[in-house]
């Protein structure tokens, strides 16, 4: 019988300390779990957990505080950037992050996110864009693609009637207060690795006091898209990537030579 010698083995991958070891309420195949994990890994690597305060939003990630293992507050719908502003202004030496979906961030919370960015509020925003309202059951969001069917655009988003989707990162990157704004995607391992680097860069922005930082993460919503998890990643790649290009929209000059 073969034996394995564990003595000389090195731990190269483990559960992040910033993430509690518990099952989430997220649907199978949803990329919220991936996004949570990336944020937790980055906070661990930067040794920031003990000084971090999170702000959860309203949507599927309303319970994010059940999974992250650091101080957390839960904001009214769309108001996370304002709440985070209050926290950060009181604790300028702490790390403050918001975790918001697209309905929360760029529909009901458009004013709060825009002004937080304009003020150069030194917070980090993790922005989950899955092109619909997940928690309430898949309604049309500001990010829903033209022609995309949702429960409140059953014949597909008609731009003549419902208007056009908002490219949030591009819009916020026009503001002088923004220090770091990029869009990444969570549809395959390569892009997930790139997303993690971006999240690292966003927190580096905050640590350095370089202003508002946001990583937009294109994400899947298999349940409300009525697709299997694998099909959902393909749908994202084929439909969302052409409309929402992955790019760096704003990178503070002081960040340009950083590498991880």
């Amino acid at each position, binding site marked *: 019988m073969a034996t394995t010698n564990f003595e000389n083995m090195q731990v190269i991958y483990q559960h992040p300390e910033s993430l509690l070891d518990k099952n989430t309420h997220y649907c199978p195949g949803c990329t919220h779990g991936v996004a949570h994990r990336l944020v937790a890994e980055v906070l661990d690597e930067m040794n920031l957990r003990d000084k971090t305060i999170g702000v959860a939003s309203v949507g599927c990630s309303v319970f994010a505080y059940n999974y992250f293992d650091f101080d*957390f*507050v839960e904001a009214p719908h769309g*108001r996370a950037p304002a709440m985070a*502003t*209050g926290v950060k*202004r009181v604790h300028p030496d702490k790390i403050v992050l918001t975790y918001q979906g697209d309905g929360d961030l760029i529909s009901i919370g458009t004013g709060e996110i825009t002004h937080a960015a304009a003020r150069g509020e030194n917070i980090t925003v993790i922005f989950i864009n899955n092109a619909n309202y997940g928690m309430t059951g898949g309604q049309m969001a500001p990010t829903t693609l033209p022609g995309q069917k949702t429960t409140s655009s059953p014949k597909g988003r008609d731009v003549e009637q419902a208007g056009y989707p908002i490219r949030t990162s591009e819009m916020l990157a026009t503001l002088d207060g923004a220090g770091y704004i990029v869009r990444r995607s969570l549809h395959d391992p390569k892009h997930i690795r790139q997303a993690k680097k971006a999240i690292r860069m966003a927190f580096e922005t905050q640590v350095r006091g370089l202003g508002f930082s946001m990583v937009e993460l294109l994400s899947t919503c298999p349940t409300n898209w009525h697709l299997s998890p694998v099909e959902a990643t393909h749908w994202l790649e084929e439909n969302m990537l052409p409309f929402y290009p992955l790019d760096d929209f704003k990178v503070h000059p002081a960040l340009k030579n950083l590498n991880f």
Partner: protein
Amino acid sequence: MTRELWKGNEAIAEAAVRAGLQAYFGYPITPQTEALEYMSWRLPDLGRVFLQAESELGAINMVYGAACAGARTMTTTSSPGTSLMMEGLSYIAGTEVPMVLVDVVRGGPGLGNIAPAQGDYNQIVHGGGHGDYHPIVLAPASIQEAVDIVYQTFDIAEKYRTIVIVMLDGSIGQMMEPAEMPPMQEVRKVWPAWSASSTQGKRERNVLTSIYLDPKDMEKTNLRLMKTWQQIEKNEIRYKEYFMDDAKFAVVGFGSAGRVALSAVRAARAEGIPVGLFRPISVNPFPKQQILALTDKMDGFFVVEMNSGMMLDDVLLASQGRIPVEFYGRMGGVMPFPDEILREIRRLHAEGWKAEGHPRDRWLAKLEQIINEE
């Protein structure tokens, strides 16, 4: 300390600063704006947090964040701004974090006007935000009283982890009066144990939220809030009585209306009319027991307000129909003159009290004529 001439809005701002205010967030709106302007230089000079928000929604949620973060925090606004803040107030109540709001009330509904009014009584005292919660609401009648009240609000808010609202009629915010400032308190240096101020690796994490998805958990929170409210009802009743010892009937009015009524009561006393004034200062909790006790001694209550009789309903409830109640009010930013109230006091003294119908209906029946004659 010496008495100095203060503008109401600036006086309450300075009183908050001296009470150890750490973070202020606000938005310009008349007739409150001087408070925001005062804070904009005063707090940075002291190394404390001032921020002008993008809206009242932003301001109240910044206050919410700062309150969760453990700071002594407040905002000031006026009626339409208070309407916008109702969302945040409900969340703050549900999260059980302390904060102070000063509402400098103006005429409404809608955009209304910028003249003094008391039409926010219902939205502040009887809710406004969704769900079961009760903020403490204090209504001063002078700048000195406003200063003294604001100075104490943070201690009260922290004692119960609740919202304290100071309801200032626009007149108190805008006028100037001599007032003595209380001494400067030191800013607190330790964050409360419950605050979301980061663990520093020294404690379990704190989570502050108003969501309780299981109705049973929500109900337990509701119960806790109501038990706290019972304590507040027991401990925080405030009112002031004038000429009440030998009074046969009492005018009841809060804030500026109470102050105008006092002039009328003094004039009536000079004419030998045995009238007193009962002025609630805490309109929430409302001095129900005191009103009820007065029904044994009084022939009637004459309620005076700068609205359509919002506190009137509370007086009717508290007096339990034991004695007649009469009402006189002006709305929309119109302040009553002492003479208007004196005229009613004389009438009640001469004609006695009517019991039929609702006092609001009796008042409305004559208001149109009063407005037309002016």
